């Protein structure tokens, strides 16, 4: 049986990892802080995948991000999806060369759909994760440019992404982002019929029970958290243990 996944999302800008709350950013610590406080060498026992997003639009900071990515990949043996600021094939290829297994695109899906198509054709659907920032409560809308620019209805955007053949959808609720109040499952009402693309739920997880609600949902394939404080220390490992005790459909790793 295919297991569901627990994903840890890291937000990065200019040498620091950040906590985001409704897209307002707070610096938390650098990579050494992360390695130490998250016992990074053993993080692959707790989570199935890592997502790393560079929020810095300053292009001179890209080499610093690539080095950080490579250092992280060297410290954990799990799949890493990287993104933020992917506007060219060169940028995508640099991320893969520095150890990313998948690419995360968001704004490019609105502004450069031809780039997304090119990346799908070059690297395959399984390499492409489309991140969506959405909010409600009525007429669920999607936003680009770090939730700054409205881009129409969530349902229409999902259809568009299906047409672009992306491999996975990362569904992030702007109004729950960093709040720890739990996921907003309303977004799933906008999922078109006969939907085939794996969905990662994001935005709002503060407790293992939130993760478990997502993992039990038939439309959801993975649960993500980007909260640097709620699962600090061995928090991710204990969340996974609790989830497995409640028979969540996660992989059990050998000792």
């Amino acid at each position, binding site marked *: *049986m*295919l*297991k*569901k*996944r627990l994903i840890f999302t890291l937000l990065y800008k200019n040498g620091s990892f950040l906590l985001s709350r409704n897209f307002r950013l707070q610096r938390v610590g650098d990579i050494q802080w992360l390695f130490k406080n998250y016992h990074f060498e053993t993080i*692959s*026992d707790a989570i*199935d995948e890592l997502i790393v997003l560079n929020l810095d639009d300053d292009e001179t900071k890209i080499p610093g991000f690539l080095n950080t990515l*490579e250092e992280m*990949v*060297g410290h954990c*043996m*799990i*799949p890493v999806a990287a993104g933020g600021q992917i506007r060219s094939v060169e940028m995508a290829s640099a991320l*893969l*060369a*520095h*150890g*990313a*297994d*998948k690419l995360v695109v968001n704004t490019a899906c609105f502004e450069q759909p031809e780039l997304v198509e090119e990346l799908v*054709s*070059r*690297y*395959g*659907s*399984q*390499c492409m994760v489309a991140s969506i920032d959405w909010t409600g409560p009525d007429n669920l809308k999607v936003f680009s440019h770090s939730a700054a620019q409205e881009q129409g209805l969530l349902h229409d955007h999902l259809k568009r992404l299906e047409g672009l053949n992306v*491999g*996975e959808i990362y569904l992030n609720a702007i109004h729950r982002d960093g709040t720890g109040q739990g996921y907003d499952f309303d977004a799933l009402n906008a999922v078109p019929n006969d939907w*085939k*693309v*794996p969905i990662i739920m994001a935005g709002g997880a503060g407790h293992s029970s939130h993760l478990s609600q997502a993992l039990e949902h038939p439309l959801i*394939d*993975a649960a993500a958290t980007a909260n640097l404080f709620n699962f600090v220390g061995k928090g991710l490992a204990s969340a996974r243990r609790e989830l497995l005790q409640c028979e969540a459909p996660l*992989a*059990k*790793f*050998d*000792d």
Partner: protein
Amino acid sequence: MKITLIDYGMGNHLSVRNALSRLGYNSSVSQDPIVIKNSDFIILPGVGSFRRAMENLNGLGLSEAIIQAATENGIPMLGICLGMQLLGSESTEDGTSEGLHLIDNKISKLDSSSGIRIPHVGFNNVYWKTANALTDELNQNSDFYFTHSYAMTDSDKSADYIYCDYGAPFVAGFRKHNIFGVQFHPEKSQRTGLKLLKNFLEIKRA
């Protein structure tokens, strides 16, 4: 011991090399046919579309080197993910294109008629009817990490297979003489994955 990862511009070598160094093995990355043919072990990784990968391999003159290394020189070879598919005869990804024909199996899209989601992403358990060198000391139904939309058939009867079920059973791995392939990513599959890589590197050359 010379472990060579073949570089054809489409693989994520870093993760495989990191996994090998955790096991205490040095490896190098090369696109030089002479280096490849003088290796003790060859790993063919790969992320991307089959057609582009074959165009790159042919364009770099590597297809012939890989075939010679595997058949005439008998060097143990492991294809990972797309790397395994390239060892097959042909794929329908992005138009039909020919593979390296080291195993006589075709590659096509996973059948989604049962309602499964594609790509197949995440940990899934694998099993085998006939054990092979790769499965040594591994438990049946161990979880490995997959991320793919295409899979290989098992029509070549001269190989031993590892299977996985997703909608229907598909080939998760094979052994044909000194040639091995895994559809999953052992370098992303925890200690079980490391054990499998170790098994491969302990194979004695015939």
